């Protein structure tokens, strides 16, 4: 499973970086995320429930942050276990680049899955991972572009690229957030979870 993508987010880089490292924001953007906690300066743990119809699969994952370079990017290593559904592990490199008042988030990710996920989910992984990553970024963009930008809201064009976005003067959030969780891997992980749930459904429905 390999993926790469780019998303343009109508918010300045420092804010994107901060949000990308804010467990509360991420938790809201990852469907089914039940817990996201810091366990150390550069480690986190999370639990995500993926649900398809009446079936759900719970994955618990450990995340390690590497190559921290705020606000330019980082590398995430994730290892997630889903019980009988199998496991997923992988890493993602995330880069943030300024593009006027907006930010371009580029990522490359690679991962592997094992157990049932690999046995019956192999074909579904790539497409599902991409869709879930897209869903995540759409939610993430809404999160950044809507509530916390009163000036932009006043301008009346919350999602527009041309929206003037106030740039926070200090980078306090970035400095703190550097030790928190990350987005892309969660997108990828969520994808895996959806597949896990599909697999679980497939296994029990027969």
């Amino acid at each position, binding site marked *: 499973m390999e993926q790469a993508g780019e998303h343009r987010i109508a918010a300045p880089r420092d804010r994107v970086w901060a949000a990308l490292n804010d467990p509360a924001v991420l938790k809201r953007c990852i469907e089914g995320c039940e817990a996201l906690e810091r366990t150390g300066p550069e480690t986190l743990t999370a639990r995500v429930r993926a649900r398809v119809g009446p079936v759900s699969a719970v994955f618990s994952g450990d995340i390690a942050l590497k190559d921290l370079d705020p606000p330019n990017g980082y590398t995430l290593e994730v290892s997630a276990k889903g*019980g*009988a559904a*199998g*496991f997923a592990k992988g890493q993602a490199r995330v880069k943030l680049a300024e593009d006027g008042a907006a930010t371009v988030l580029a990522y490359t990710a690679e991962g*592997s*899955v*094992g*157990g*049932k*996920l*690999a*046995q*019956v989910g*192999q*074909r579904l992984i790539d497409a599902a991972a991409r869709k879930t990553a897209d869903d995540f970024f759409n939610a993430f963009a809404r999160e950044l572009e809507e509530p916390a930008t009163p000036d932009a809201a006043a301008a009346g064009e919350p999602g527009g690229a041309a929206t003037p976005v106030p740039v926070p003067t200090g980078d306090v959030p970035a400095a703190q957030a550097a030790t928190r969780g990350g987005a892309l891997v969660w997108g990828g992980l969520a994808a895996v979870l959806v597949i896990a749930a599909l697999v679980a459904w497939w*296994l*029990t429905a*027969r």
Partner: protein
Amino acid sequence: MNGMIGQPVRRREDIRFITGRGRYTDDLAAAGQAYAVFARSPYARARLAKVDTAAAKASPGVVAVFTGADLAAGGIAALPCGWLVKSTDGTDMKVAPRPPLAISVVNFVGEPYAVVIADSLEAARAGAEAIEADFQDLPPAANLATAMDGPQIHEGIEQNRSFHWALGNQAKTEAAFAAAAHVTRLEFANNRLIPNAIEPRACLANYDAASDEITLTTTSQNPHLERLVLSAFVGLAPEHKLRVISPDVGGGFGSKIFIYPEETAAAWAARELRRAVKWTADRSEAFLSDAHGRDHLTTAELAMDAQGTFLGLRVHTRANLGAYLSTFASSVPTYLYGTLLAGQYRTPAIWVEVDGVYTNTAPVDAYRGAGRPEATYVVERLVETAARELKLDPAEIRRRNFIHEFPYETPVALVYDIGDYEQSLARALTLADVAGFPQRRAEAEKRGMKRGLGYSCYIEACGLAPSQLAISLGAGVGLYESGEVRVNPTGSVTVFTGSHSHGQGHETTFAQVVATKFGIPIEQVEVVHGDTGRMEFGLGTYGSRSLAVGGSALVKSAEKVIEKGKKISGHMLETTPDDIDFEDGVYRARGTNRQMTFGEVALAAYVPANFPEGLEPGLSEKTFYDPKNFTYPAGSHIAEVEIDPETGVVKVVAFTAVDDFGEIINPMIVEGQVHGGVAQGIGQALLEHGVYDDTGQLITGSFMDYAMPRAGDLPSFSVETTVTPCTHNPLGAKGCGEAGAIGAPAAIINAVTDALGVKDIAMPASPERVWRALQGA
């Protein structure tokens, strides 16, 4: 009379199969039965640091959770491999212990490490979900090509090599190559196959506290062998306290010969819990945990003189054994493979070396053909390629090298008793209308299609096996068969065989054999099999052995019954047994009009009012038949294919099989066996491929990714037989169950390479591979 030997009697067992009245293991239920679900490793190789079963045990409906440590503490030993192979340096093969449930390490995806027993299947599944296992994953050696240089899987087994085995005469072979005018060389893989019987493995284990007996009802091809191994080697229970029943079984193809972890654990748990335990594999489990087949990497060379006379054959094979040695894993790429490399030819010098290699994949063992399809593929791909290189007709190069004189001792340890390879080939050439092929090819070309023709003249060693020879070669058991013929007082007959039918139709053919011997209607004969509680011993069904060995045992027993009947009737007809003739179910005093029917003699045997002195009452005889040699079915298969160059799709437009199975009891059943075997052979050649990725994940683990042959993939087969009767068994029969799967792959690939004009293409010749070959051509 209907039902005699040679007649196409309809399979009597099919009535219950096709009307839903078959009794398969999963159809059976015991009072209060619990359900087992296994927790399986998602990793190809990992240290199993901890298995926390607390949450699983607390899960609603869960009765018990057992780990590998629990089974070991309960006295359950590792599952053994039943065939000892020695390396060229004289050392024994290296065996990695295989506990039924993993204890401290897991070595393939799907390896079970715990079992959850619960009141319902759902509760057992939920319990298995709740097991928390701490795996510390390790780098696997998942790929056969690199496994000998990869991470060492088992302690003390360097290069992951279990054995380096060889057969033949190396010096003579090297000399043959040195003198050769031409050498044909090929390197190829024999693709890994996943068996996929319609019925997955299943078991129902019951424990009777009153008798302290475990009854294990399971999908076994050889219930007595299962009992023997579980008792003598695994330590489950003494043999007399363990009964193994194989009821109706929906296909085996070899995969149900072996002694597996799940049935072992379920039987042990049933006694531990004093409660019946049911387990039925789902299809995903079957993909992961049934022993797979084939999986060789081979370099093969054929040395010839300028006229295409074979001088020598040199073969090196790396055989994938999987993570552990399954029950007969070591025999398949050695004694069932190397011994067949002479094929139908007089090749005077042969040298074969085989490395048996462990990998972090499911165990590999016998699958329909078991070693012989791999051997045939080597020989027949080489011969066809040699013909093309020497610009010889592929039939002609074969004729020049056929064995004509029998018995024939090959350079690889077998003695062929009889055969007529010319005859089969000649008939196949006619039946396949090979003469008309150039015209058909030209016509296909006009339509933009590429047409090809391929031959495969296979031989197999069946009728496993002469016990003394097999044991001297490493077998842990004799390979005779038992058969009891019990004539009931009213003259009907109940036949007990140690063979087992799981699709072969024994209930019909064995009844035909006995009915013919006695001259009674087939309806009077019942065949009982698959229960260690009902027949005394048996070695089961595999290696196309049932009729040649099990059927011969029945013939011997029937002859003993007839002899006793002569004594009884001789006395009652006031003559001597020597003056009694038995024919068509009637005992006649020679030279008189006095006679007794088969039924009258049976009644007299059980109501001995007027009985010879010193003769025991009753009319029941049994035999252990030990074959004197293997049987050697052989034949010629010709495949014709058409390839669409736009898509790379290969269509098998015709398939001709002319086989010599010796004497035939039921031609309809034989034809059916050939059809099934050829379908599986075409499956291997064009569709099926079991693939692990480099991390050891099985990525062809469902029918989404593992392509089985379907009716639409197959032509209407053209099937005939020729007959040279086996010289050493009383039926003259050789066996027919595996021939199709043995002969077909080489015929298909020879046809595909002919159509494409390439030297080789890998199996399965999928549209993608064919298309790529065309782009490269």
